[in-house]
């Protein structure tokens, strides 16, 4: 049983370390991907990808231009964050501010695991 748990933990670590998404090197796919990750600032809760507002359409053109200039995905996000604030990007960064956000569920998970461990292995 211990072996099973170790195996599962190994799979989990492998999965988490392969989180980098590999996308085809297609520009329009990249535009779609980036715009799905951006919030349309003048809409209520829609992504730039879904929205047909002027703001969203202009952003989509801007993204395409920047990709053609050779900018990377991160550079485009940084540029837009500089213009409009972190609010525009849906993927919260992994920085000091958002540490609690990313870590809290994982800490809770570990804590739950410890509780179960105590219940099962210790009388």
């Amino acid at each position, binding site marked *: 049983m211990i072996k099973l748990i170790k195996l599962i933990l190994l799979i989990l670590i492998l999965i988490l370390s392969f989180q980098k998404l590999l996308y085809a090197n297609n520009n329009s796919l990249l535009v779609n991907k980036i715009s799905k990750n951006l919030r349309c*600032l*003048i809409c*209520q809760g829609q992504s730039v990808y879904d929205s047909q*507002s*002027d*703001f969203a*359409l*202009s*952003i989509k*053109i*801007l993204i395409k*231009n920047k990709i053609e200039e050779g900018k990377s995905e991160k550079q485009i996000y940084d540029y837009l964050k500089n*213009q*409009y*604030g972190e*609010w525009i990007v849906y993927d919260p960064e992994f920085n000091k501010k958002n540490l609690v956000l990313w870590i809290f569920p994982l800490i809770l998970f570990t804590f739950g695991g410890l509780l179960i461990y105590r219940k099962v292995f210790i009388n």
Partner: protein
Amino acid sequence: MKKNIYYSILFLFFIFIFSVFYLGLDKPNSYTPNESSNKNLPTFASKELFLNDEFISNNIIKNNQFTLVNIWASWCAPCRLEHSLLMDLKAKTNINIIGLNYKDKKNNAIKFLNEFGNPFEKILTDPDGTISIELGAYGVPETFLVNSKSKIIRKYIGPLKIDNISEIIRITK
């Protein structure tokens, strides 16, 4: 004893959560962007409306005047409301008023100006909206007050109102 400690921590934790929510109720939930920033007007290139020649934004900023960059379009209803205020502003002050024509057709833009007047020193065009994004704008109408050193002093989102005009006049005196 241990149980008491757990419960006290839990209780304090809930007080904290509820205080945050209580305070959060007062905050607006839609984006209210920074209306005064410390940024400079980004450099951009654009074609002029009438003559079609390329302009780089640096050439527009005069070195002893304030510049007002107003994003407008002929199809934009609120722009009509603020247009008379812009005409007023042109008459009363010597602010360098520049127009940025947003996602518009030349004929429609000219027709608009013929009907409502032309307060602009120069009119640049933004046919696909990307220049407005480079300026950090949300849409139309939007207005930027820029000083002679290219610093954005004020950003007005939505149509200009009378108090905005008074503020502009006050700042640029």
